[in-house]
């Protein structure tokens, strides 16, 4: 095996393009991911047409708020392209300067004050489906935020009015007259006065008024509590059952490293074994010079070694941008090594099936890319039967196990790294057996 390994390293050293790719790839990907995560998402360009008259205000909870200041808050998540008219906004979209336009209608104040349902903002879109989706999400999030703010203001106004009804006073939101009595005091005042009245129709009528005032007081008190839940009826409380929370950016690092590990490893192992057949050397090797399992082991080890180096360099590079815990480097090494061996075994199985390098490369892409993407589909995101199929495929292909191992090693996502490592070891053995069967068939 030593001489085969030496030979393959010699061939690798002479494949300058491949060698350059192996060196430049981790550097480029690390820089890309690092910048992408550390810089945050860029804001989409959106043209904004404010058709409301200058200085127009909305009355909310006794406060006057300028429409233009609401619009600014509403569009905080986008880069605003100023447009005076709808035509200018359309021109900005058509020229590609803006992905969308938001039109704030002139009658927005009248609509807010009316009872004819929600007020509409007009949104014009352009760009492809993904760009539209991003803009739509940004604008919908901004509108949801604005709706919460409106709701809060309305809730505040209603609460103030309730308070005024209960406690009386003066200069409240309802514009109550000076020294007005509140509902809180009315029942006791009535009771005091009823005591001194003789039995009869007049007393009975006042007792009914006192009962009504008591009921109204209780009901309006409850209304205040109900109003506090209107603005945000549901709140999220998260409970983590196992391990610790993985931040999205460091999970993205694990995904990127796992994908790179997979591609480098599978492509190199598949190509390496296919090259033996393309050069007609496999028959010469297997007629007693080398055992098939040694050829498979050599290709797996070489591919795993290269992929390990690439993936480790990527992690080291990304750690310059994203805080990764170097104290866990031992676990990184284990996860990368086991993942690389499993992917290497997959590569040899593919290489054993293909007669030439090009076919092996194509087969490697066709097989690995969809399987890796399937493994990223969250459980329960698709229907039951399809979910089961995806779960089985993800279990049989090493990507998910490698990703879990890396997520655990890099982020401490799960306390049981050994489960993923064992899974990867079993898959490595199984795919090596498949590769051996493929070589036997090839002979």
């Amino acid at each position, binding site marked *: 095996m030593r001489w085969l390994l030496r*030979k393959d390293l010699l061939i690798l050293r002479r*494949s300058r393009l491949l060698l350059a790719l192996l060196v430049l790839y981790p550097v480029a990907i690390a820089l890309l991911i690092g910048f992408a995560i550390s810089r945050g998402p860029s804001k989409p360009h959106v043209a904004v047409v404010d058709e409301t008259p200058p200085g127009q205000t909305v009355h909310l909870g006794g406060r006057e708020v300028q429409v233009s200041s609401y619009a600014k808050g509403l569009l905080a998540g986008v880069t605003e392209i100023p447009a005076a008219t709808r035509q200018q906004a359309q021109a900005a979209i058509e020229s590609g300067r803006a992905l969308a336009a938001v039109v704030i209608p002139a009658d927005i104040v009248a609509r807010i004050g009316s009872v004819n349902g929600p007020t509409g903002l007009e949104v014009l879109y352009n760009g492809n489906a993904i760009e539209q989706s991003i803009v739509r999400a940004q604008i919908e999030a901004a509108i949801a935020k604005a709706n919460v703010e409106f709701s809060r203001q309305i809730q505040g106004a209603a609460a103030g009015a309730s308070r005024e009804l209960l406690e009386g006073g003066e200069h409240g939101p309802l514009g109550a007259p000076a020294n007005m009595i509140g509902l809180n005091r009315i029942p006791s005042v009535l009771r005091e006065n009823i005591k001194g009245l003789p039995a009869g129709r007049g007393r009975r009528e006042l007792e009914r008024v006192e009962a009504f005032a008591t009921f109204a007081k209780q009901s309006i008190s409850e209304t205040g509590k109900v109003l506090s839940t209107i603005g945000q009826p549901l709140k999220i409380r998260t409970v983590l059952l196992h391990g610790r929370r993985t931040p999205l950016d460091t999970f993205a690092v694990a995904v990127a490293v796992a994908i790179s590990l997979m591609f480098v490893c599978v492509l190199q192992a598949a190509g390496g074994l296919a090259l033996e057949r393309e050069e007609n050397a496999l028959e*010469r090797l297997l*007629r007693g010079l080398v055992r098939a399992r040694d050829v498979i082991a050599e290709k797996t080890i070489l591919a795993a070694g290269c992929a390990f180096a690439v993936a480790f360099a990527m992690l080291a590079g990304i750690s310059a941008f994203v805080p990764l815990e170097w104290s866990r480097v031992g676990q990184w090494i284990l996860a990368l090594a086991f993942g690389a061996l499993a992917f290497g075994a997959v590569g040899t199985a593919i290489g054993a099936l293909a007669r030439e390098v090009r076919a092996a490369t194509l087969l490697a892409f066709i097989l690995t890319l969809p399987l890796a993407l399937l493994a990223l589909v969250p459980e329960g995101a698709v229907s039951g039967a399809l979910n089961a199929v995806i779960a089985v495929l993800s279990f049989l292909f090493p990507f998910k196990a490698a990703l879990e191992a890396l997520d655990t090693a890099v982020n401490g996502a799960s306390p049981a790294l050994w489960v993923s490592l064992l899974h990867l070891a079993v898959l490595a053995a199984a795919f090596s057996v498949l590769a051996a069967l493929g070589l036997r068939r090839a002979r």
Partner: protein
Amino acid sequence: MRFGAITALDDVSLKVDPGEIVAVVGPNGAGKTTLLSIISGLIKPSAGRLVPPVPEVGWAPQQQSLYKALTARENLELFAHLESVPDADAAVERMLEQTGLASRADERAGNLSGGNRQRVNVALALLGEPPLLALDEPTAALDPAQRERLWRFVAELAHGGTAVLFVSHNIGEVQRWATRVVVLDRGHKLFDGPVEELAAGGELEQGLLALLAGWEEAA
């Protein structure tokens, strides 16, 4: 030798003495490739045995079996070590000298001419100084001058005591270089004897066609 229900070789025995150059000829489907595959150890026979054992048979396949990214010397070094040839470096130098490749030893095999690549292919088969050399269509991709050089080299090997067995469709080469000819058809051995014996009126091709026609009629 059987492949499922098909009998590829039916009770075919063959002995090649040191110094002999034996040609195996016959139409397509005769069993020539199967015979050479058994001798070179690529497939195991259903019955019978091979002497010498596979590792002592030098094998040069029709499709050149070498690494084009390596030089001629590196190819020879690799297989010398894999075959555990004693004093591998000396064996490599000897083969480079014998095959006339010493001056091109450090060129990548992919850059060599078809003839020189075939020489490397044959040199790889000869590294362990095997008593039997099996060649599959050794001159199929070569021009006339390259063929001539290769056959002279093979003849020298035979002169040195190596037994040579080759498969060929080129009857002219068989008549010129083989000392013995074996004719196969549909897995049966039809003839095994000196070339002169089969060559009717001095023409091997005529004798071969007559033999096959007679066999066809009898069948």
